[in-house]
Each structure stands twice: as C-alpha cells, then as structure tokens.
C-alpha cells in the first residue's frame, strides 16, 4: 500500500523513484517524474518568472486527462507549490491532492502538448474552452504574466512528447505512469 501523500514516507519513495528514473540521460518524456524535475529546476532558476510571480501565493496544478492511446491510463496531476516567485517543489501527486490545489487547469494530453509546443496559448485555450480552470479567476488574471511564463518554461524544458513517441518510448512512458500510480 502506498504511503499517504504529504508524509515523509511518500516524499522518500517519490525521491527514490525519481533517482531510479534519472539514471537514464535526457531527453525525457514530457510529464514523467524525471521531466518534471527538470521543469522544477528551470522555474527555480528563472528570473523572469520570479519577477512576474513575486506576489503569487498558492499551488497551480496541471491536470492531464487520461489518454490510453498514448500510454497514459491515469489522471495525471502536476502539482506546483509556488510562493512569491519561488517554486518550492513540483510533484506528480495523487488525484485527491491534485484536485485540492488552489488552481487546477485541466486539459487533454493533446491540448497540453499543443501548449508545450507553443501552438496553443494557454489564455486563448481557456477562452476557447480547450483548457478548464478551477480556482479564483481574478487571482490568476491578476498574475496572468506569471502563469504564461510557467507555460512558456514548460516548452523550454524540451523533451519527447508522448503523442509523438515511438512504440518503445510509449512503453517507457506507460511504465513511468504505472510507477506514479503506485504512489497514488
């Protein structure tokens, strides 16, 4: 049985999984724990984000809906713990923790891929109903530049898109998602 999210045991198991998975060199597949760790580091080092988000308080969660055709059999929650320009951590968390985030942006894997490839602007995506936002809208509108920078950085991490992965990479992605689900 998986330890409860938020406990030291959960974090310890997450870190152990991450260490195992990071033995392989990049490029990593988008939304895997090892890709998420690179994303975390990039945000932590980004001066532009720090400035834009200096007043920001609260977590932002990217919710990726299941896409079994691409090897994603679970609801994936990329939980970003953000505070006044700092990115304290990014983890792939269980659904109940993800849904409890302050701001949850939901979209299909194809939509998130478009966002990461800069083919779809996140604000435009929300206006078109392609991405759904849950949370206090005025707060996120007030910090729209910080939110856009977060999305831009996801494109800068680089990596392999699950929608464009080879059969072998897709199997690898599926395996990574099974490891994530084991911590749910």
């Amino acid at each position, binding site marked *: 049985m998986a330890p409860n999210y938020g406990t030291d045991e959960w974090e310890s198991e997450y870190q152990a999984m991450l260490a195992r998975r990071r033995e392989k060199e990049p490029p990593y597949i988008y939304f895997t724990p090892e890709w998420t760790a690179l994303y975390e580091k990039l945000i932590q080092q980004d001066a532009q984000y720090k400035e834009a988000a200096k007043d920001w308080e609260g977590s932002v969660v990217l919710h990726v809906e299941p896409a079994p055709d691409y090897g994603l059999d679970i609801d994936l929650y990329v939980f970003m713990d953000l505070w006044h320009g700092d990115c304290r951590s990014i983890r792939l968390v269980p659904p109940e923790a993800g849904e409890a985030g302050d701001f949850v942006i939901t979209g299909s894997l194809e939509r998130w891929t478009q966002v990461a490839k800069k083919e779809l602007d996140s*604000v435009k995506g929300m*206006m078109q109903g392609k991405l*759904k936002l849950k949370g206090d*809208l*005025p707060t996120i509108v007030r910090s*729209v530049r910080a939110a856009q920078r977060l999305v831009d950085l996801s494109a800068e991490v680089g990596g392999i898109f699950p929608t464009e992965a080879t059969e072998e990479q897709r199997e690898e992605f599926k395996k990574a998602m099974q490891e994530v689900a084991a911590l749910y």
Partner: protein
Amino acid sequence: MGETFTRVGPENLGIFLAPGAEEAGMASMMAEMISTNLQNKPGRVKDYNALRGTIWITATDAEVDITLAFTGGGLIVHGGKVGHPILQISADSATLMDLANITIKYGMPYYFDEVGKQVLNKIKSGEIKIKGMVPHIMELTRLTKIMSVK
C-alpha cells in the same frame, strides 16, 4: 429559466449563463470573473446595478465571441452575438486580460500606470477596437470597473 440558464455566483447578483454559452470558455470566465469581483468588491455593485444594455466582446485570436446582456442588476452571458450591442469590443485574448487588469483609482479606471498606458496605446493602434465608445462612455467605464480585478 432556472432549467436552461445556469446561475453563476450568489442569487442576489442575478448572473446567468445562457444555454450553450458554457461551450465558449470565455463566457464562463467572464461570468465568473464579474461575479467574484462583485463579491470581493461590493463597492462596485452600484455600477453593476446601473449598467443596462448589451455588450459584445470578441477574442480575435481565439475566434470566440460573447454577449453580455446587462439588465440593471442582472446579467446574462450569451455565446456569440445577440441583439443590438451598444458597445462592441474586440482584441486578442491577452489584451482582454489587460482590460481586466486596469487599476481602479478614486472609483475610476486609471490609465496612467503601465497597464493603463498599454491599453490606451492599443486603442490608438487599433489592437483594441471599441465601437460605440463615445455615446456609451459611462457604460464602458462601468464595465471596466466590474471587470477589473484590481
């Protein structure tokens, strides 16, 4: 009406989404933003109560348009263009977000800070198009106040 129109926010504000409007994400966003703003800033309810007429807003890059039908204390948000709008506003999605970030100072929109100047420049350059602004400047001011998250 309750069966087909979706209420957004508390009953006393009387904000509804027309049937099918939720398909345009912008309609839900606008309804929710106005509702939350009025709850957070009750001083702006008098502007909301005084606002009458329909306003058409288009996000040009997203190819999404909505109509805000204000009835003086009530609002129905429709997808698409409905009726005969007194004001027609078109801009790209990011610029519409700028409009929601205009500072309200001494009860009026303030155009002399960074966001305000950007908005004025975009009106001048045609990136924001506002039809009906001159005869309906009061309605535009009231809309700006209830839309602004600042």
